[in-house]
């Protein structure tokens, strides 16, 4: 499903070059719930964003369902992000000038909306428990509710992969539980592949795939490697 081969990513900031990723290779099978964990600054977000084609790796290859992200044109990247990937971020996710339902429809605003899309957006909001809040602006919603709108937005395209960067980072544990309940249900019902960056190991289940990054390199211990293999066979 997702194949990452020797991906390196370095940033130039002034004179210095920061090597955020120094040769990461991994495989995430379809339908798995994968976690990226590691200390702050280890390169977790960088890897996640590269999976979503938000930037290009300095070297290496990333292949998602047979498509090589590194060989994509700018326009293909746009389509990839719009149609195949759902993003959820820690915060600052929603557009403040749009209502909840319009935020869910954001990917389709440039092309124009259809009644079918609007119906689906309301349905998704209802599924995440916000059926009565469709016309509310982000400032009228709590952090947890905002995050659920963002999840609905990630799901409206029925994505192959959902990428989430610390989706519960700014939520209390109850709101965090709610977010993970929705994501788990998504994995169970639609076999969506999920890649989630987190600091909070509470939400990791025993049969999840855990990718541990340190200093821009993947550190896969024996037991996780074991689970990895089992996961690949499922």
């Amino acid at each position: 499903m997702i194949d990452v081969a020797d991906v390196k990513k370095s940033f130039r900031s002034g004179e210095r070059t920061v090597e955020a990723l120094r040769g990461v290779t991994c495989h995430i099978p379809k339908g798995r719930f994968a976690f990226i964990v590691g200390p702050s600054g280890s390169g977790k977000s960088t890897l996640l964003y590269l999976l979503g084609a938000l930037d290009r790796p300095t070297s290496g290859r990333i292949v998602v369902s047979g498509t090589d992200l590194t060989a994509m044109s700018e326009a293909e990247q746009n389509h990839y992000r719009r149609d195949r990937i759902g993003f959820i971020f820690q915060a600052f996710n929603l557009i403040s000038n749009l209502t909840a339902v319009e935020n869910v429809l954001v990917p389709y605003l440039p092309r124009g909306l259809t009644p079918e899309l609007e119906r689906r957006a309301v349905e998704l909001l209802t599924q995440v428990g916000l059926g009565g809040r469709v016309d509310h602006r982000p400032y009228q919603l709590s952090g947890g509710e905002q995050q659920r709108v963002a999840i609905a937005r990630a799901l409206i395209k029925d994505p192959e992969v959902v990428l989430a960067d610390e989706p519960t980072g700014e939520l209390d544990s109850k709101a965090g539980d709610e977010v993970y309940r929705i994501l788990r249900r998504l994995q169970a019902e639609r076999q969506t592949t999920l890649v989630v960056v987190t600091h909070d190991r509470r939400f990791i289940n025993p049969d999840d795939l855990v990718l541990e990054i340190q200093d821009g390199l993947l550190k896969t211990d024996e037991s996780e490697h074991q689970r990895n293999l089992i996961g690949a066979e499922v």
Partner: protein
Amino acid sequence: MGRFAWRNLLTRPLRTTLALVGLSIPILGVIGLFSLSGGLRNLVGDTLNKIQGVMVMRDNLPSPVFSDLPTNYGERLKAVPGVKVVAPEVWKIAPSVNGTRSFTRTASDLITGGGAKAMKSLLDMPLIQGQDIPTHTNLRSGVYPSSLKEKGEGRYLEPSDAGTNRVVISRKLSKDFLKPDGTPSGVGDKLRIGDKDVKEFEIVGIYDTGSMFLDVVIVMDIGTARKLLGVSEDQVSTFYVEMTDPTANDKVSLAIEKAMPDVDARSMNEFMANFGVIMSKVDIFLLMTVSLALLVGIVGIINTMLMSTTERFVEFGVLRTNGWSQGNVLALVTAESAFLGLMAGAISCVMAYAGVTIINQFIGDGLRLTLPFWLFGLGIGISLVTGTLGGLYPAWRASKLVPMDAIRLGSH
């Protein structure tokens, strides 16, 4: 997406309003200047189109008031082939009327009223025109008699008025020279004209050409004017000449100037041409003003849009991660500033309409600001172009952002 852009403007009302004011004012200025130049064009065009003959006066003088020619030039003019009627005229700036000297009035306005008022009273200075009544009666195109018949009252001068103190004045002058009880002078009322030797003149008619340049003339018999102004029998100011064939004005004028090198035969086409040269300079000036306004407007819009896009980088990052292309972001921001431009244009048009209506109430007398339909189009066009151009650079910057960097700005 249009609605989204619209809402983005409305959520920052103060900034949007300031940007609108900043763009509306130069656009309003542009509309105002064009309106004024249109008004001037109409004024002069209206006036001169009414005059079909040719004015013969001394070479190189700005106004008939300063011209003097020997009376016997009349015979020489009649000898030029194509000339039909030669009507001698005496022109001077009027001496005191009802005890007010026009020079004094102008000077005092200059001191008390400032430039605009003095300018107006300069244009307002009453002139005396003495006409040779029998020949003037033979003219095809008499501006004063025809306007008197159309909109005036009383009667025009007749040959029997020769040698009498009877005058025809404009409606405007009738309001300038009030009767002792404060009401405008009318037919049958008297004017006292003269500095030392003051004489009474009876108003027999009131004309109204509607033109600022013509409605300043007190018309009387040429003999009466000579006595009043001290012009001797062998001198006139100008000759008003009509041709047998009015379309041959220019040709005959040339023939006149050839026969008599010390005179100018000014056909109205010539006046128009001179005026055209002046107006084309005014137009260049207008064009420069427009460009300057455009520049100021663009800079203002760039500033506004840069501020607004800089603080929304994260938002653009979110849009990009959701599949918006660079072009989509570019279109959004450009649409916002184009909307700004459009609104500024609409506001300017409304204000220009209101302004012109109000100003025209007050100026009256000939000069009217015009507001043709194309001027609205121009105003809206300029502001739309300004808005769009001013938005392009901020939009380009917003769209160039790498989505990953934009997201990072928001999450740390």
